């Protein structure tokens, strides 16, 4: 009944897979069980994830309106600057709570990942 697991990689692609898999391993949580000290970070992660979702929606709308030509030059500039500042503020908050982009990803199953 035994079948030893075998890993078979396309010739020439070993280094590439090694890099990708190392990256995944890096993103795995340090600790599995719930730890009271980490509750704050968990909450920050949840709140920042929600803000990130809204930020992405706003960016999509802004780009759609810019591409659709419905914004004046001045409006494009104002909208772009507001989104730039929001993005910088998010980066600060992520740093503050020790989170990175992967921490704020939502896996939507068959719809893919929100990022």
């Amino acid at each position: 009944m035994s079948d030893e697991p075998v890993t078979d990689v396309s010739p020439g692609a070993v280094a590439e897979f090694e890099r990708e898999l190392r990256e995944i391993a890096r993103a795995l949580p340090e600790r599995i069980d719930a730890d009271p000290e980490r509750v704050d970070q968990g909450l920050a992660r949840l709140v920042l994830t929600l803000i990130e979702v809204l930020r992405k929606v706003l960016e999509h709308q802004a780009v759609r309106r810019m591409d659709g030509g419905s914004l004046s030059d001045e409006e494009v500039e104002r909208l772009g600057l507001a989104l730039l500042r929001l993005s910088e503020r998010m980066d600060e908050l992520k740093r503050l709570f020790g989170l990175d982009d992967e921490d704020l990803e939502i896996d939507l199953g068959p719809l893919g990942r929100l990022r």
Partner: protein
Amino acid sequence: MRAVDVGGLRAWVSDTGGSAVTPSPERARSHDRVVRAALELATPLPARFGQVVSDEAALEALVEPRRAAFSAALERLAGMVEMTVRVILPAHAREGPALTGQEGRAASGREYLERVAVTQRQERNLLAEAGIVREHIRSAVRELVRAEAFAGAAAGSSMITVSHLIPRGHIEHYRRAIGALREDQPSLAIMVSGPWAPYSFAEAIG
């Protein structure tokens, strides 16, 4: 390592010193060895690495309310194994439009929005490419698989992962089918591995 009988189901457990298990490569490997040993006997429901209960009573309290779900899952997975295909998407899907001159902070609101637009286009390209590759894999192994689990590329990555639940008897066929796909699609870097315990298909264990 010992087996504990929990109302007709058998849980494989080992004793730990503390309330949580700190992951390390060595511990992950020993967890994997245990799951593999179980897989040689029959297809198990693999527990997530690092699940800790305080004692056997707590184990029973954990299993008891979900016994029916566990039994149904074991029945569904009997004789099945998981095979995993990882594909690195071809370079043209990753690169998209040129990114030159985009280092550092955007100098204006317009420049920021234009950069965002480029990134969004790249993400759409990657998503579309991932969908195409998923279809290639699906049609290569369609006859052999009972279920599929898909994980798209994470942020900054261009590797997708597709896991399949297949009957043990199909392992060699499956490997050959992926080998044929590799020949048909030489631009795709493909890694196939398994058989594994059905980690991606053991939802009941939560």
